[in-house]
């Protein structure tokens, strides 16, 4: 019996140890850096804690920590707040676009003959076999002024001036929608596939035409999938760095890009850490919200 109980504790402890070592500890390190000051040193901030120096030195160092960097990031004089806002906006618009593109695809997949559904699922997942970075680079080739898209439109005679898509927000939207589409489709598909088709027959039987039946039956029953898909896309899109960096213009303001600039160009580990901690908080709120939605869903069952 005692062995059994021990075994159970061990199994339970593994994920917690994992989270502790790979999530909580790094977070605390970043949080500590965000409370430090920049310095020309190795590493480039002070204070650094040296456990060998004793308790007094620790207390002294601890007193040097401050929230100064947060004040800097949150001050209106700097562009950070604007960057957060613009990130949330771009992520929000992208999520709406993703839903508009992903819903019909997921719907068609869920209504496809059972025999071809696994193939369709496979096709949705297939792009993951190529590196994300390479796929985003490929879009440069498509969207650039001499790129495939412009050549194609020239060929058709639709345009006489090359379209300037690359290095605009439009390119960022295209990149995000393209990259995140599977994360939208999969939860929507799983919600729609579970739905009993006789419900739509019942609605029709009771006098409800197909379009109205969609809004009264299919849409409300797919809402858990809609929530899951939107949060799965929105949360990483807010912190997205690669797509705005490669496809966006210099005026595309996204917090991931700002964070990277702070870290790599300005070499301010402390400010970029503060930006990262604040970004995490911006994202934790929707996650908590999502968990609430899920908990309510579970209760219903």
């Amino acid at each position, binding site marked *: 019996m005692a062995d059994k109980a021990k075994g159970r504790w061990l199994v339970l402890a593994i994920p917690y140890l994992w989270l502790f070592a790979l999530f909580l500890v790094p977070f605390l390190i970043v949080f500590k850096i965000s409370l430090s000051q920049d310095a020309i040193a190795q590493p480039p901030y002070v204070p650094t804690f040296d456990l060998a120096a004793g308790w007094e030195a620790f207390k002294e160092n601890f007193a040097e920590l401050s929230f100064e960097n947060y004040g800097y990031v949150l001050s209106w004089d700097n562009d950070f707040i604007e960057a957060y806002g613009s990130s949330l906006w771009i992520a929000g618009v992208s999520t709406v676009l993703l839903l508009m593109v992903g819903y019909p695809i997921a719907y068609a997949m869920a209504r496809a003959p059972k025999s071809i559904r696994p193939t369709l699922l496979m096709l949705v997942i297939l792009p993951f076999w190529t590196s994300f970075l390479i796929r985003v680079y490929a879009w440069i080739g498509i969207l650039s002024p001499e790129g495939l898209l412009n050549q194609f439109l020239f060929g058709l005679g639709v345009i006489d001036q090359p379209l300037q898509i690359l290095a605009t927000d439009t390119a960022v939207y295209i990149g995000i929608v393209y990259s995140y589409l599977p994360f939208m489709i999969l939860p929507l598909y799983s919600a729609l596939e579970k739905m009993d088709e*006789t419900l739509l*027959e019942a609605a029709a039987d*009771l006098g409800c035409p197909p379009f109205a039946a969609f809004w009264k039956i299919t849409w409300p029953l797919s809402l858990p999938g809609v929530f899951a898909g939107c949060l799965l896309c929105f949360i990483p899109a807010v912190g997205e760095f690669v797509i705005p960096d490669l496809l966006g213009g210099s005026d595309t303001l996204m917090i991931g890009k700002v964070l990277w600039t702070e870290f790599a160009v300005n070499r301010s580990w402390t400010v970029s850490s503060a930006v990262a901690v604040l970004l995490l908080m911006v994202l934790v709120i929707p996650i908590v919200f999502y968990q609430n939605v899920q908990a309510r869903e579970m209760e219903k069952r």
Partner: protein
Amino acid sequence: MSTGVADKTQKTIGGIRRKFAPWTDPQATPLIRYQNVTKRFGEFVAIDNLSLDIYEREFFALLGPSGCGKTTLMRMLAGFEEPTSGQITLAGQDLVGTPPYKRQTNMMFQSYALFPHMSVWDNIAFGLRQDRMDKDAVANRVEEMLKLVKLSQFAKRKPHQLSGGQRQRVALARSLAKRPKVLLLDEPLGALDKKLREETQFELMDIQMELGMTFLIVTHDQEEAMTVADRIAVMNHGKLVQVSPPAVIYEQPASRYVAEFVGDVNILDAVIEAKVPGLVTLRAEAAPGMSFRVAQDCETQVGDTVALAFRPEKLRVELDPPADPTVNCLTGTIWDIGYLGDLSIYHVELANGQRIKAAKPNLTRMVERPITWEDKVYVSFAPDAGVVLKS
């Protein structure tokens, strides 16, 4: 929930039931007409050139094994399937090409198909709201329906908070709420346990009478069909085999298939020896030296091979020979006994090895000389108990 309303109206209901037989009246116009309807799914013929008339206020059952086309026949009336050829009319109007949401039929689904995100109240109101009925009228009708199925106190519940029997009643209320010209019931009681199913069958009959509606039920359960229906259509391979009231289906089956599908039956291969109007005399190989008399008019000729069918409950099993043991009498040994409490089923092995079943009610508690295994018995029946079947 068997039903105060029905008790009050029982007298009138009985009166109507007694006289109700519009199919015998050549003047009556049918409410539903299937005319030469064929339905193919690819190569498979689900419905084969079928014609059928169903009358107003009738409780009509489609009975058959799975895959016989009964559900397809019903779904064509609801509009979920279109016939490949032929015509379906409801109250004189051609239905072919009309989408389901424009038809005046409502269906109670086998799976109930209740909307899981809506309360009982909203489920029942769904169809009424589609008709843009005004709010008070909707509320009144929903309350009325809830009362009819005795679910008033569950109006706010969601379907998953109800028992199977309650869900079944919500589905019934929802399909009745719009007062359809025809209510279609697709195996409506399949998911209920036996006791509840039997109760609900009588409730369905009472509700049908009370609302004066036409019900069309699809079932594979012959007892259910016999209990509820005014007429039963027995189907096989997309065709109607027999369309008759339950008693006719049971007592005068049109074919060997119907006799075997509905209830228990014993069948002997027999040859017609003589016939006069109202009486057929036969000989059976299974019982050499015996002659069988059946009170029936018969189209078949003397010398033809036919099937002689008789139901187990119409047989007498005795240890002593009857008055004339050469007519309508078989001898054999008891092979097995099934004791059901109210009845005992005796399996009797005849001289040629064929086994027949005879049911005997257990009228007294103790019998002095009970029939038991390996007893020699005489199995006899009256001339009006047997039926001669051509095919």
